[in-house]
């Protein structure tokens, strides 16, 4: 372990550490632009120059490995002068347009020029001018400001896995761009905005909207996919203006997907801001009292067996628990949170979790994808798979239609029949799985949300058991969900009780008239035409498919407008926090259900979110630990039986339009127009969602 002295502080660092990292460890700040701990070292901005004793000239600390007995000075005259000189060079071609630059207030160059720069410029000549590039609807460019740190190029190449950005030309005429005019085709492209240390790459939808110091920052979690990325919600007044990633090594590292980041403008469109009741075939604005009375009328006369409830993809656990208890008190066991009809088995927790954990992917050595398209279902899981792939010694195979996942994948077949082949004796990939030290499989909704899903689940379990994926020290059986609410719903048993109907039976019952009333808690992804003549209550935040069909609409809160718990696909309980209030008369979802229960004569026994959470935690101990994971015990699950040899169909047809919020977002609509058309190959048409 090299031991070195930095500004008089002695530090010991692991071999392979750079001088810059050693400085950080010693608590000494070294200014830098191009260096980023998650990207390869480029060493081209020169801002991190420090003085090393006995070295003839200042060294670039980001690229210099720490060695024994080095004596580093970061604050000597020589180091200061070197920095000042570098900063002056960087500013030669950097425009003095901070007042009109969106990076202002959170700009590395601005901050470091203040701290380490010279107090005037000596450059009298003209600054160079660079044409702005068009990177699509998300990333706005102002290339005059670019200091050529190449962070964006390295991010696109290494993390996003789309080699489209590059530095063309050289010297004074070097430019960052795609050379051939095109939009960046990555679901992670928004991250280059955060990476850019200057204002060259900024957010296009957020352009000239706000200054960072005007914003109220709330730490929360994302609900637009089942990864549950840690986010920071920036709001001004009631409006959520932008969403940024928050560091969480276990889940999203420091990236978020473009949908998480940019669907935020959907929160201001098509909102339900007051209750509605259908009168004479048309939805008419109503008061809360009228709406509750209408529900009491529609639900009250029916026996428990004739009413049902479905929970959607963005719903928090508290609301689902309140609805479950309300339905139980009404005598109905017809509840289901699997609105996509996935044959998930709620009896065994290990059967529906991403047991390996997202960070655990980095330990695996073989991965089998079954009916899942992680790039669109969970871009950050895909980024983790790519990270593991780049480290080498990682084999990936897939069952399902061919995809570009940004890393090479062996295609084993199209449908579930391959699972039996793999479990058999004579399959080359079966041997690869059996020979692996830490094999894993990822089972997607493309495999489970079909008629033979339970049989596929059983076949996957058998495969996992026969290839040594499930051991005391390793669980390689993973289910990748597409909805933030799903695992939470399964954890609290928002599934049919004894004799209850599941989603398919509820919809069939509506068609036949056996179900007279349905409560949709944010459920928009079901086929509304199958609800027949049932009395439909929709509680949610957007005027989407559910509200259109409903007889009574109750305005709820979106995930940024309420304190709520979500459980991600790993089974990690995470708390979303309120960043602003829901619009108009809309209320938090659990409170709506609590108020409604009173009108229906079955008052729920909690008057505050705190009491509701206490009840939740005492009934379901896995919710006691926020942000942690309780490992699930293995058991038998799934249903043995024949599987249809029909190819898997991936659950997401368009990454940018998957839920009521993103469907209401103008930015996502633009992305869909630009990217979906580009990716939509004949093998994958728009009718398969």
């Amino acid at each position, binding site marked *: 372990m090299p031991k070195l002295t930095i500004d008089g502080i002695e530090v010991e660092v692991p071999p392979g550490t750079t001088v810059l990292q050693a400085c950080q460890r010693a608590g000494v700040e070294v200014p830098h632009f191009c260096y980023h701990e998650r990207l390869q070292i480029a060493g081209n901005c020169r801002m991190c120059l420090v003085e090393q004793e006995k070295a003839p000239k200042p060294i670039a600390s980001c690229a210099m490995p720490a060695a024994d007995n080095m004596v580093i000075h970061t604050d000597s005259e020589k180091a200061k002068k070197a920095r000042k000189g570098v900063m002056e060079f960087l500013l030669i071609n950097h425009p003095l347009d901070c007042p009109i630059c969106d990076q202002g207030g959170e700009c590395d160059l601005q901050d470091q020029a203040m701290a380490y720069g010279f107090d005037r410029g000596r450059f009298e000549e003209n600054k160079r001018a660079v*044409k702005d590039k068009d990177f699509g609807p998300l990333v706005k460019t102002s290339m005059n400001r670019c200091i050529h740190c190449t962070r964006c190029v390295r991010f696109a190449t290494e993390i996003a896995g789309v080699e489209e950005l590059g530095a*063309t030309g*050289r010297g004074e005429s070097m*430019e960052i*761009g*795609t*050379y*051939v*005019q095109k939009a960046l085709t990555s679901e992670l492209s928004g991250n280059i905005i955060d990476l850019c240390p200057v204002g060259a790459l900024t957010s296009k939808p957020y352009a000239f909207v706000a200054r960072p110091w005007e914003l109220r920052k709330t730490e929360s979690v994302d609900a637009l996919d089942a990864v549950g990325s840690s986010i920071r919600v920036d709001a001004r007044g009631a409006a959520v203006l932008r969403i940024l990633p928050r560091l969480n090594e276990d889940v999203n590292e420091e990236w978020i997907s473009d949908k998480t980041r940019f669907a935020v403008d959907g929160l201001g469109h098509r909102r339900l801001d007051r209750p509605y009741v259908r009168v004479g075939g048309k939805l008419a604005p109503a008061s809360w009292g009228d709406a509750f009375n209408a529900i009491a009328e529609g639900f009250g006369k029916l026996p428990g067996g004739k009413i049902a409830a479905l929970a959607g993809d963005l719903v928090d656990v508290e609301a689902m628990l309140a609805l479950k208890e309300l339905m139980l008190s009404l005598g109905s066991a017809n509840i289901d949170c699997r609105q996509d009809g996935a044959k998930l088995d709620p009896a065994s927790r290990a059967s529906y979790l991403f047991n390996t954990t997202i960070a655990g992917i980095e330990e695996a050595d073989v991965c089998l994808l079954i009916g899942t398209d992680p790039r669109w279902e969970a871009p950050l899981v895909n980024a983790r798979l790519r990270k593991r792939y780049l480290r080498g010694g990682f084999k990936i195979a897939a069952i399902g239609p061919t995809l570009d996942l940004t890393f090479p994948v062996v295609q084993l077949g199209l449908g579930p029949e391959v699972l039996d082949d793999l479990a058999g004796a004579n399959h080359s990939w079966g041997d690869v799985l059996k020979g692996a030290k830490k094999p894993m499989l990822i089972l997607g909704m493309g495999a489970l949300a079909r008629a033979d899903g339970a049989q596929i689940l059983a076949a996957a379990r058998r495969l996992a058991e026969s290839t040594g994926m499930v051991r005391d020290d390793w669980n390689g059986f993973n289910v990748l969900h597409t909805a933030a609410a799903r695992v939470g719903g399964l954890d609290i048993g928002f599934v049919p009780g004894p004799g209850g109907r599941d989603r398919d039976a509820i919809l069939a019952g509506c068609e036949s008239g056996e179900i007279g009333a349905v409560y949709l808690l944010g459920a928009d992804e079901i086929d509304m035409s199958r609800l027949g003549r049932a009395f439909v209550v929709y509680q949610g935040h957007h005027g989407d498919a559910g509200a259109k069909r409903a007889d009574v609409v109750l305005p709820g809160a979106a995930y940024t407008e309420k304190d709520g718990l979500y459980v991600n696909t790993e089974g990690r309980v995470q708390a979303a926090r309120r960043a602003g209030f829901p619009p108009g008369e809309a209320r938090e979802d659990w409170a709506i259900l609590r108020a409604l229960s009173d009108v229906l004569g079955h008052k729920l026994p909690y008057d505050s979110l705190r009491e509701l959470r206490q009840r939740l935690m005492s009934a379901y101990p896995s919710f006691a630990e926020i942000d942690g994971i309780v490992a699930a015990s293995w058991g038998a699950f799934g249903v043995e039986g024949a599987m249809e040899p029909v190819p898997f169909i991936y659950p997401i047809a368009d990454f940018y339009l998957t839920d009521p919020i993103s469907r209401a977002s103008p930015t996502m609509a633009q992305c869909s127009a630009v990217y979906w058309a580009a990716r939509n190959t004949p093998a994958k048409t728009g009718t398969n969602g």
Partner: protein
Amino acid sequence: MSAEHNDTPVAQPESFAFTAENLEKARYHIAKYPPGRQASAVLPLLDLAQRQHDNWLPRAAMDTVADILEMPRIRVYEVATFYSMFNLRPVGKYFLQLCTTTPCWLRGSDAVVETCKHKLGIDIGEITPDGKFSMMEVECLGACVNAPVIQVNDDFYEDLDAASTEALLDALANDRPPPMGPAVKRQNAAPISGRTTLLSDPTQRQPAGTAPAGDPNAA
């Protein structure tokens, strides 16, 4: 400038394919590198493509090279725009690269450039309407001893002045390129006033240990 940062505003051919002969040469270059490292052959392949395609590289050619070498296209664009030797827009049949770096400039490259401009009626970076000549100003060509220098396609024409430049252009206009090398009476880069070294017969050297005074290697 050679570097273009977006689609060059010139008519780009739809496609590009190596001739069978060049494909063979390409394979020869690729075979020099271990499997998986074939991207190392990008420079010779781009050069082959440029020579095959009238001395300039259309985007289709760069894409073809990228596909052959199984590397992302942007990586090929980066290489092609980095080197000024790759022309990303059409050049004349005779592509004049005029050196104006200090030694050539001190030896009268201004007159050479002026003669070219006047004679051809085009400016630096332009091409004559008949497509015969185009001009580019370059940094040091590495032939400072014979300054000023013009590189015409692959050949150096050296020790030029206004008159000899005019003669050179006339000859090229008639498609009779003169032999490359100095335009004055001189053997390659040897001193113009005749030899100043190696005047004695090296086989008749003095015996070892009796180096002549003033030889810095003697001590």
